[in-house]
């Protein structure tokens, strides 16, 4: 099956377990959405994400899947992943850890911290949502985290990460709210770190050596959404 057929069939399948949405595009990759009643979402941009749909489909296909979320806890994401995708979620907010280390002036010890951060066993996790955390990590810390993620993933386990195209002095992180299987709402919140590290494709491939590149999308904003999968051990 070629990629286009795969995508078409996937979006049809995804829509079978998503609520119906009609989302016109504003031409910049942003999708106009009607705010849900009672939700303060008016100023928050919503973007489509095809890799998220693939990621969720792969997780959904695994029985009693376990997922690690490296971002801050978001109630609606927990409800979505737990109730609709049916997975067990481990919340490991690395952005909070990063801020704590930055405030203590201990970022140089962050790689050591990461090496012992996760209590999860080897090959015990089906999926990891990295969001854009690698953009904020120095090379040593990025390498430590990638090693831990590879250690935790089961064979056929998947990893979704977003990688920015340019560095920024903005002291803010992004919370990614899963609106539905194909859309993410972005909300910014203050941070102690800046998005300093831009990884080239070869850096990313090197970082995740041993995993298979399952899908990669370059958004017009320059952000790369990359889905890796751990191969079956022979």
């Amino acid at each position: 099956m070629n990629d286009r057929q795969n995508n078409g069939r996937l979006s049809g399948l995804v829509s079978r377990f998503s609520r119906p949405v009609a989302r016109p595009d504003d031409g910049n990759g942003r999708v106009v959405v009607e705010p849900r009643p009672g939700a303060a979402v008016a100023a928050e941009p919503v973007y489509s994400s095809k890799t998220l749909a693939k990621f969720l489909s792969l997780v959904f296909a695994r029985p009693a899947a376990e997922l690690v979320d490296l971002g801050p806890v978001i109630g609606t994401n927990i409800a979505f992943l737990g109730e609709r995708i049916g997975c067990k979620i481990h919340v490991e907010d690395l952005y909070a850890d990063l801020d704590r280390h930055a405030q203590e002036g201990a970022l140089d010890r962050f790689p050591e911290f990461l090496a012992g951060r996760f209590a999860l066993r080897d090959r015990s996790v089906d999926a990891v949502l990295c969001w854009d955390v690698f953009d904020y990590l120095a090379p040593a810390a990025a390498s430590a985290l990638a090693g831990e993620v590879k250690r935790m993933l089961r064979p056929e386990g998947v990893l979704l990460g977003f990688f920015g195209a340019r560095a920024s002095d903005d002291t803010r992180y992004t919370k990614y709210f899963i609106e539905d299987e194909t859309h993410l709402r972005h909300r910014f919140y203050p941070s102690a770190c800046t998005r300093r590290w831009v990884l080239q494709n070869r850096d990313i491939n090197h970082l995740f050596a041993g995993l298979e590149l399952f899908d990669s999308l370059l958004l017009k904003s320059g952000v790369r959404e990359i889905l890796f999968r751990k191969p079956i051990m022979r």
Partner: protein
Amino acid sequence: MVWKREEPLRPTSVPVNPVQAPSYPPVLSGGFDQPQGEQRPMNEELASIGKSIVINGELSGSEDLTIEGQVEGKIELRDHVLTVGSNGRIKAQVSAKAIVVFGQVTGNLTASEKVDIKENGSVDGDIVAPRVAIADGSHFRGSIDMQRKEQSSSKQPSSVERTLGAFSKPEPKPSVPPATSVTNDLIRV
């Protein structure tokens, strides 16, 4: 003859100091979705553990409970609601029908109905419950399992799951990216 309904006796005492009143609505074991009109009778008292109380050991009961003090050990309210008030500090394994957290909890939470972590509430531990609500501004670290055990063990794949299963083993992409193509809002690399 004019009938006049007897006026009920009105309390003459000083009204409750609003500062002392709880800053959150009590959740009763009738459920989270109980309509506002179906409140319990006023004379039914709610059990509570006050701010200055410290308990070490096992706590169990068959009524709803609000904790504003400190509890270490184990808490079991099988068919009832546990509310950890904003002053509550719990270090315990907690099991209840529903658990509402305004304060701080360290320990695993198991609820047969729902766990609700309110704004400024904090939980460090694993949660097992069919429904979990986590408010913005709350803190959580641990895992969340919303699957009922009996469902997961006897789970039959639905038609959607069976169809999605077709995607479980796609051909992995080669390391060398294919030629770039532009879609509506995305560029495939």
